[in-house]
């Protein structure tokens, strides 16, 4: 289990700056708790998907081809 991340308000401001998102004043405090939850869970998923047995798994966002379609239809 990955340790819970505590995202600070300053980190939220930095992330917004990096994204070029002009975050209105005071919104850091609204975003930080939810972002802490989500990034902790996302890092847990990162850990799972980094296991050697899953290294051959490709992302769902690949172009599909007719042969892939036919294979899917076998199920």
């Amino acid at each position: 289990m990955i340790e819970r991340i505590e995202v600070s308000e300053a980190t939220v401001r930095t992330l917004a700056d990096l994204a070029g998102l002009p975050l209105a004043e005071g919104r850091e405090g609204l975003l930080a708790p939810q972002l802490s939850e989500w990034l902790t869970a996302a890092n847990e998923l990162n850990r799972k998907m980094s296991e050697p047995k899953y290294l051959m798994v490709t992302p769902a966002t690949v172009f599909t081809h007719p042969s892939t379609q036919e294979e899917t239809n076998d199920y």
Partner: protein
Amino acid sequence: MTTRTKEDLVQLTLAQAAHLVERKEVSPVDLVEVSLEKIAAVNKWLNAYITVYEDEARQVAKAAEAMIVAGHRLGPLHGIPIGLKDNIGLKGLRTTAGSKVLADWVPDQDATVAARLKGAGAIVIGKTNLHEFAWGGTSANPHYGFVRNPWDTERFPAGSSGGSGAAVAARTCYGALGTDTGGSVRLPAAVNGIAGIRPTIGRVSNYGVIPLAWSMDTVGPLTRTVEDCAVMFNVIAGPDPKDNGCANVPVEDYTSDLKRGVEGIRIGIVPDYFFHHLQPAVHNAVREALGTLENLGASAIDVNVENIQGNISAQLTVESCEPSAYHQRWLRERPEAYGEDVRLLLELGEMHLATHYIQAQRYRQLLRQEFLEAFKSVDVFICPTLPFTATPVGEMSVIIENDVEEDMLSAIMQFTGVPSLTGLPSLNVPCGYDNDNLPIGMQIIGRPFDEATLFRVGAAFQEATDFHTRAPAL
């Protein structure tokens, strides 16, 4: 043309109404009039519609009546009043997506699904309310009013297609279209006591529909019965050259197996996940539904899906990053135009790392392969649609067990996330009511492009039960 009372007409199912129109026993004009009267009576309580097309619907109904009298039937939905979720484009008519951002947007083309419904004779009676931009599960819309549940107007209708769910359950139309990214057809279908299907990704065109998350978006019907759902699905399913994501797979007649029963059907259960962490009434109703199907000849088989844990995080990651990409310009130029909850989600979606998103998309392949493998030994999976019944309007958290408050968004997609991530089709069917007379739904999940089996199982269940025949007392 008819001697039936208005209440008789209101209570017809879509399939019954379509049959009676075909036989010239009921006029489309009467169906539209009773629907408009019902909308006028209940919409002030429900906020189910953003726009109602009174004049247009009456005009089309008159034309539909003239055509049927002359012996010309456009298709299986001839003369049937239908609602469309307001993120589905209609040429020349405003399509808001439940937002202030698009409050005055008028598409110059019909969405493919809208064109197909109209081509089959359906009469679009209005555009239904939704969670703003479909990004949320409560339909608490700050711009067009919170949608309410016709079974208890102090409760939510779920979402994001909450207006479509409430509109159908309240008998203001005979069917409606919704969109489903993380559960937005199935959730409102469940808490409003009606049927609703999320199709296989690629089975139904998304062309002309305002996107939420491109890689998970689908369009599906919400109806009073499974049969009605199959009738509507027949019309909207199929390849679309305008949508590159739409699969070139032939369309079946989805009504052909409705009477086939479930003898020999193998139902997969993932007990550690699908019957874990849910309200007792929901647990009991879905377990009893499984018993009913077993009595009808199906068999239930426990299945282990090794990596099912993690699906909520993957869903939140994909479903937050993709909308944030779509909304990037508006979020910078007009952030105050969004409701607070959607603005927050869009801002959060900008703060994931690229690796989080890619790992979530890889997880989707992993989970999909595990389900496809499991489908070698079962025909469908069954689980609850959501782990609780309708919560009070406006609540952002929910208590499922042990007095622990949980974030609504994560809690509501506990079971609907699996089909959304894997692209598998999933049908909600009403399967009970809790002690407050609030509906409970179960999901029937199937193989890719095997919606016919979902309709078959759902119809067999409805043949043996009466949950779908009950109507809210409004």
